[in-house]
């Protein structure tokens, strides 16, 4: 077993060697521009891109023509939301999203507010799921788009996508989802789920960085987005720019592998995740964040009360994980996602996200359990809050000198 152990697969995943192998020829002898229509170099590249489109389409249940390649999920979120807003502004200016979305969605919505959009940010319940009645109540005849993420990047909860899309459609709005954490990990089917636009990226599913997809529905209804990048009219005019052929080939291969291995992999990972969670919640005052019944198989977000996340990560130096604490940012603000669940700031500061992946082994999880337990106990020995808790002092009654 090699140290440190990578348990941050929600941030990014390692490239699968099989994906790398598929990509390599397209850096060297198959280097053609997929838009070169007049010679074999271009045809080879175009053929590879078309094949990738098929592989991607098969994973999410759409047709090849509905795939727009982008530089990643952030660009796809921008293109989808801004593109719909501009294309459908005659119909209305109202967009509905949620407070726990990724910044690529939230900041895009904020940007559009300056351009005249009205945006509703739905709160989530304590378990991280949105309230469908609140969504229903927020819909107006001006609502053109509902955009709610599939699986959350920090806590892994999976939203009731079918129900959400049904509500959006009932009111004549389009439904978009940022499915970056979900595609390739759990079954995502754009038709069964009623998805009109969907953003995701390759590097979260063992593909390369720098390539992603915006799925844009072509039938029932035919969805259009205005281009956000002007140029040669690639990707049916929706996204200009020379295609990243090796990246696209890698994305296709990554999608194929995920499709073939998803069932067994999800079972294996949720088994490991459950083992990790069961062991760590045996520690006093530790809590799992987010709904535990509707979630991705590979994420565990746990708060260890009375220890601070960043300090804790230092003690877990053989584990690459992430924390909801943000002691490095000038604002000292902890994770807005955890705060949206109603977690107090101190519990949000005390959280650790474990993100398991394809290359996580049983042995590594055993090591992670021991390492984490040791670190939590070590930091609690150092923690004045833990001592006060043990003495029965109610910490909420203390007047803290806020700074």
């Amino acid at each position, binding site marked *: 077993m090699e140290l440190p152990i990578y348990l941050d697969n929600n941030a990014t995943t390692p490239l699968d060697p099989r994906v790398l192998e598929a990509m390599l020829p397209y850096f060297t002898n198959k280097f053609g521009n997929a838009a070169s229509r007049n010679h074999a170099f271009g045809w080879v590249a175009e053929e590879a891109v078309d094949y990738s489109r098929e592989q991607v389409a098969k994973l999410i249940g759409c047709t090849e023509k509905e795939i727009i390649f982008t530089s990643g999920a952030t660009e796809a979120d921008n293109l989808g939301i801004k593109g719909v807003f501009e294309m459908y502004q005659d119909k209305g200016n109202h967009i509905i999203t949620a407070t726990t979305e990724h910044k690529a969605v939230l900041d895009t919505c904020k940007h559009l507010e300056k351009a005249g959009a009205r945006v509703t940010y739905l709160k989530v319940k304590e378990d991280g799921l949105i309230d469908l009645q609140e969504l229903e109540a927020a819909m107006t005849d001006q609502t053109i788009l509902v955009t709610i993420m599939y699986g959350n990047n920090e806590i892994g909860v999976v939203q009731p996508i079918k129900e959400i899309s049904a509500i959006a459609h009932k009111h004549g709005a389009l439904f978009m989802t940022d499915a970056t954490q979900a595609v390739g990990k759990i079954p995502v089917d754009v038709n069964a789920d009623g998805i009109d636009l969907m953003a995701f990226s390759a590097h979260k599913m063992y593909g390369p960085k720098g390539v992603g997809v915006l799925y844009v529905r072509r039938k029932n209804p035919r969805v259009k987005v205005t281009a956000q990048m002007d140029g040669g009219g690639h990707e049916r005019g929706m996204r200009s720019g020379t295609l990243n052929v090796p990246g696209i080939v890698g994305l296709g291969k990554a999608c194929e592998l995920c499709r073939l291995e998803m069932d067994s992999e999800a079972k294996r990972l949720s088994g490991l995740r459950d083992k990790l969670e069961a062991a760590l919640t045996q520690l006093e005052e530790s809590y799992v964040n987010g709904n535990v019944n509707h979630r991705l198989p590979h994420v565990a977000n746990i708060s260890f009360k*009375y*220890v*601070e*996340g*960043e*300090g804790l990560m*230092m*003690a877990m130096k053989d584990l690459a994980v992430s924390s909801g*604490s*943000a*002691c*490095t*940012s*000038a604002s*000292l603000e*902890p994770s807005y996602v955890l705060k949206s669940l109603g977690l*107090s*700031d*101190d519990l949000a*500061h005390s959280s650790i996200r474990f993100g398991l992946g394809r290359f996580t082994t049983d042995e590594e999880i055993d090591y992670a359990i021991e390492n984490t337990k040791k670190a939590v106990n070590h930091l609690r*020995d*150092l*923690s*004045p*809050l*833990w*001592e006060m808790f043990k003495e029965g002092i109610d*910490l909420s009654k203390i007047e*803290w*000198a*806020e*700074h």
Partner: protein
Amino acid sequence: MAYSEKVMEHYTNPRNVGTLDKDSKSVGTGLVGAPECGDVMRLQIEVDENNVITDAKFKTFGCGSAIASSSLATEWLKGKTVDEALTIDNMDIVEELALPPVKIHCSVLAEDAIKSAINDYRVKNGMAPFELAKSHH
């Protein structure tokens, strides 16, 4: 962000972790910070009849830099008179631990903890507290 060697050293082998009897007249306790902000320091000093700090202990809830700052502070306090202790400046801690700008607040908190512990000691022993400069941040 990588931590400096000195921060790592104090974090791995923190000096003077522990608790002194807060009810003792010779002990001053400073509790600063807030759980919501992600750091709380408790620093305690024991002072003898010659106004010399004979012992210092800390416990800290916070990041590695906060733990290292308070560990270093206890090390510096021991053997100093109370008046000497008052001259410890947060920038001395920043320099010693090579803290980056985003971690300067950890050193400020340590300085506040020292002053707050000294004032607790003074008040307990019938002296007026020193006027503390308002929070630096």
